[in-house]
């Protein structure tokens, strides 16, 4: 039940609703719980409602952190050899 994934807002429909793309499946969801969600933004969708907007910059930053950790490991290995 908790399984929810980020989805991109593709179209704003009736007030407070939007069509999102969930891995290729288009679905209408409610935006009642988030403010000012716009087309192109990512939201966490759960039981038909956007629970929160996904911060793209923070997502990119987390991915960069993972990548950096990878590079650090390589550096460490180089230093050890």
């Amino acid at each position, binding site marked *: 039940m908790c399984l929810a994934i980020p989805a991109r807002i593709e179209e704003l429909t009736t007030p407070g609703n939007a069509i999102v793309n969930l891995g290729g499946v288009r679905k209408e969801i409610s935006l009642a719980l988030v403010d000012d969600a716009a087309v192109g933004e990512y939201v966490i969708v759960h*039981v038909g409602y956007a*629970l929160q907007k996904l*911060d793209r910059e923070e997502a990119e930053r987390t991915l960069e952190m993972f990548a950096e950790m990878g590079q650090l490991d390589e550096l460490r290995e180089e230093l050890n050899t």
Partner: protein
Amino acid sequence: MKYVDEFRDGELAKNIAANIAREADPKRTYRLMEFCGGHTHAISRYGIADLLPANVRMIHGPGCPVCVLPIGRVDQAIRLAREHGVILCTYADTVRVPASDNLSLMRAKAKGADVRMIYSTQDALKVARDNPQREVVFLAIGFETTTPPTAVAIQQAAAEGLKNFSILCDHVLTPAAMHAILAVEGGVALDGFVGPAHVSTVIGSKPYEPFADDYGKPVVIAGFEPLDVMQAILMLVRQVNDGRAEVENEFTRAVTREGNLKAQQLVAEVFELRDMFEWRGLGSVPDSALKLRPKYAAFDAELKFRVDYVEVPDNKACECAAILRGQKRPQECKIFGTVCTPENPVGSCMVSSEGACAAHYSYGRFREVA
């Protein structure tokens, strides 16, 4: 898919695993509880346990809404459908939870009860609008993620003057359950929590601060993708090594300290605390669940149909209770995988794919024989 696949990179997972293996002190054990069923599912599905050193052990917590719903609550819903003739709407996972008299909502449906699986509270409202001559009850279960959508539906029903719609409210609270685990008699030896993902998008990271400050247990809030979980485990190992107990947030892309204030306000308008609520596995826990405020009493199915809660003990052979408290593992239950399977669940942990037993049955049970 954007921001999903990127967090499933196998090479990066190995990197984080290498860091965990390097940093975990071989002289000690790290017992980490993932509270949330979504994490249990991710850990089993992506084989995360296999990437961890033997002294880093994940303990499944009670954070699966279906698993913590006691039999008596499902019985109430079945009574509404069978004796009061209502259209009973609920989320799909709930229909298979075993109830009394060898029934479940699904079996009640097979015997003629009008039980309908819905995806969203919006669907339940639509059923009510489309059937003005029938009473429609939504069995509202779940933690802080499903509560705001129920609140929206109640306010909508009130605004529309929808007289044939009500809810059987079984919404429960995450921090209260975490308190109950830490206060459990005999105690669960825990070194830290992987904090819930989507619950935290709603309530924020602030409500976990007492677990770090008062109980000295580190909490790292993590997203549901495998890399998120691995990174959170690494952050917990580091806190334990440093002797720190803090609330850290790995899931900054969706979780802030304050959470979703709009959702919190809606919930506060519609619901208030229940004095006492019985959980499967944790027993009766004060202030751990919600009920509708008197203002919305007309939408409360318990009052409208006078269906009282009657406590029903679990099947004696079932170890769900100990598993939900983190005291036993699925494979330590005598009926696991024999009498109790996902096709024929005896206990609730075997019902939802996020339950500890179902997750272990689907993804982990061959690990031990391999």
